């Protein structure tokens, strides 16, 4: 029953990965199929890449990551399977459950529905880069303190969504927490304590 709009104040900020995906998918029929779209792009001067591996350079957690990936590869799969950044998880692979939530240029995105090639030149943040060595990010610490996790598989996504929320609203109201985290699903049912954690984050670094 999750609402996917992660910021109630900015209704246009629907998760960008999913929206871009939908936009692309919606355009394809207009250009008479995918091949037609490629031709149209070529005619407009855009570079056509793929379908084989192409070199890409990403900026992930402040570090450059050079990868060779097929253009169809999702950001999530590229980082998990090609860069061994396995912190963020894959739950539904369709931009619903939120276990793959990353922060791209300051906004949350479902990385399972974002292509790796489309985030070149952008700042990608994953759960792997959040802690400073053994020192947890305040959001991570709050999750541990409140036992806001059980199996923990959805937790990286919830943590990232909470970080994005806290960077906008350092002291979020329950309504803001609901709006900010409604794009994530926890099957173990830890929501009560995620709410406690998100409303009790101490010492937030403003991003």
């Amino acid at each position, binding site marked *: *029953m*999750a*609402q996917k709009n992660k910021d109630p104040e900015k209704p246009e900020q629907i998760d960008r990965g999913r929206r871009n995906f939908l936009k692309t998918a919606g355009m394809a029929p207009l250009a008479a199929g995918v091949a037609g779209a490629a031709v149209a792009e070529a005619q407009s001067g855009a570079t056509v890449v793929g379908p084989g591996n192409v070199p890409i350079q990403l900026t992930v957690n402040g570090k450059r990551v050079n990868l060779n990936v*097929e253009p*169809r*590869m999702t950001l999530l*799969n590229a980082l*998990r*399977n090609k860069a*061994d*950044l*396995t*912190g*963020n*998880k*894959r*739950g*539904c*692979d*369709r931009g*619903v*459950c939120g*276990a793959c939530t990353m922060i791209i240029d300051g906004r949350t995105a479902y990385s399972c529905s974002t292509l790796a090639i489309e985030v070149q030149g952008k700042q990608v943040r*994953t*759960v*792997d880069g*959040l*802690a400073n060595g053994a020192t*947890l990010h305040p959001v*991570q610490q709050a*999750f*541990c*303190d409140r*036992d806001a*996790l*059980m*199996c*923990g*598989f*959805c*937790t*990286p996504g919830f*943590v990232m969504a909470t970080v994005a929320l806290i960077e906008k609203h350092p002291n979020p109201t329950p309504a803001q*927490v*609901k709006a900010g*985290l*409604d*794009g*994530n*699903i*926890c*099957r*173990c*049912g*830890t*929501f*009560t*304590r*995620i*709410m406690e954690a998100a409303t009790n984050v101490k010492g937030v670094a403003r991003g």
Partner: protein
Amino acid sequence: MANAQQPGAPPPAPPGPTANAKKYAWPEKPAVLSTRVKRLDGPDKVSGRAKYSFDINRPGMIFGKIVRSPHPHARITAVDLSEARRAPGVKAALVWKEPGTTPTSEVRYQGEPVAAVAAETEEQAMDAARLVKVTYDVLEHVASEQQAMASDAPVVFQGGNTRKGAAQETGDLDAGFKAAAHIVEQTYATHVITHVCMESHGCVCEWDGDKLTTWVSTQGVHGTKDGFAQGLKIPGANVRVITQYMGGGFGSKFGPDAQGLICAQLAKQAGLPVKLFLDRKEEHLDTGNRPSAFAKIRAGVSADGKLTAFDGQSWGTGGAGATSNFPLPYIYQFPNRRRVHTDVYINAGQQRAMRAPGHPQGCFLTEILMDELADRVRMDPVEFRIKNLPAAAPNAAWGDYFTQGAKAFGWEKRHATGDPTPGPIKNGFGVSAHQWGGGGRGGRAHCDITSDGSVVMKVGTQDLGTGTRTIVAMLTAETLGLPVNAVKPEIGDTMYPVCGASGGSTTAASISPAIRIAAGRALDQVFAKAAPQLGVSADMLAAGDGRIFVKGNTSKGMTWKDACKLIGTEPISIDAEWEDGLSSTGTSGVQFTEVDVDIETGIVKVKRILTVQDCGLIVDRLTAESQIYGGIVGSLNFALFEDRILDRVTGQMVNPNMESYLLAGMSDIPKIDIMLVDTPLQRSRGVIGIGEPPTVSTASSIANAVRNATGATVRSLPLHPHRILAAIEEQKAGGTK
């Protein structure tokens, strides 16, 4: 089956503690147990450092993908792998379901595995899987209980589509109905839901010669090891199963399954490690579900509110050839009763145990009936339930819990059935009771203490997210008088002592006694080393606050570190196993729910839930509460959102995803109040287990609250808006009395 544990559960433990259980009895004033200890692996889980089986990346690893039947029932006549084998990146391909003309070549549900491939990338594996050519001879199928039971139904299962069990009868049914002043005759039902583990089923398999190491997402490392050995026809000693972290199981992850054996075979064929994890659609179709439950019930109640008779014909489907039984009637005492259950087989994936198997169904069917009966005799639902409970016992304390819970909840503010206030939003209260066996036996543990004072407790169990790793450390620390972080718990690996699978809420109760005895006996050896130094006999010593000291004279002693220096080069190394007397079985609990129902839209908003729940000796209060929160949310999902929907014509699941298969999010969560029973009596029972009981009652108490709000009875789940509206319309048209 009335009031019974799920089929296959361990028998009740024989009475009487063993000598070890007496010697190492739980402390009367624990330092660590029953406190709130933060989960030890929390930092690893929140930081992404925790390596789930899905996260294991091995050198040279490739990816497997299964080809599955799109048909609910078909015979496979040919499988052609040749084109798939030539596809880019493909390293292995195999046929899982051999084509032919016998029943072994039949697929009996959509999503049944047929073949598999492995390729260098996941994307290539998916491409190659599409190139496997399977020729099907499509057969007739049945996609619902109704279709399977119809007199003209095609017989799609050997021996028939249904299997009727023997009648269970107690007392004199005719006399019971004669004694009834009121009789309710209705049909009640619950639906099929799937487990939706966030981490899908799967594993990484790596061979070294004839030895297999596999990282599996499983609820039972040792059982899964046996499953691999049998399935691959190799010695158990050649298999090692590792599950350091796993992303939910809920009863669906007890063995290698087809995907595990396929993964191992692909890895063998490719000569490379293979990762094979299912996608979300495969999860819905082929990794288990909670069976449906239906019952046509006739029940009687006397004028003074005593239950007199229960006659129930029940049925349900566990899918293609699997059972669907559940306890009925649930908890309440019908002195005269008869019940017959029929398993109905349909062409859908087989059921598996799902969090408190059978109980949510039996609870719902009985508890809705109970409110209908209470109304007939114009009694308050709580009072009516208390009047019809079995005799009170430590594992049957509903009477007390109803009373305590009702007071804390403000039950006296409940109005009679049907909120009389004007306007579209109707408010209502509901109540329900539940039980679960829990308990457990057979766990083993190994304790190592070395001369540097370090303590390792090795237990071949696994942590499903329940906090098992944390309680292993807590139980050890309590026994040795150390802080929790002084103990290193080692779990999730078949290199550690054999323990049972984590199912039936048995993990805590089966491992806790073994850990307590292993640590206790190891401590005895530390005492033996320290005693001469302190000039007393070993039995005069005690441990606490990181010290070994003389009982009654805490200043006479030494630090744990100094005591351990006396151990020498040969570490203390103790094996122990579960013994009777430190654990128990049987829990009881009740839940109260308040809802708002919009009678114009049919939307139910759960406002608050209060539960009273016991679990014997609480190990970690923090994670025990988390289990209760989780159980309640799971049952709220069962009541309001999730529903496996099969197309009645094609037999295809129409919502095999997470956007149409609905689950609660943050905005759907009510206020939840937990009253965890912590009394000397409960503590004296030892460890029992808490994973399942809290997920039994919630759906029933929500449904009864909806009934109290609207005055309309929804007798089947889920409580989706259109069903609420239909029930309200039916009620307006004169009801079904």
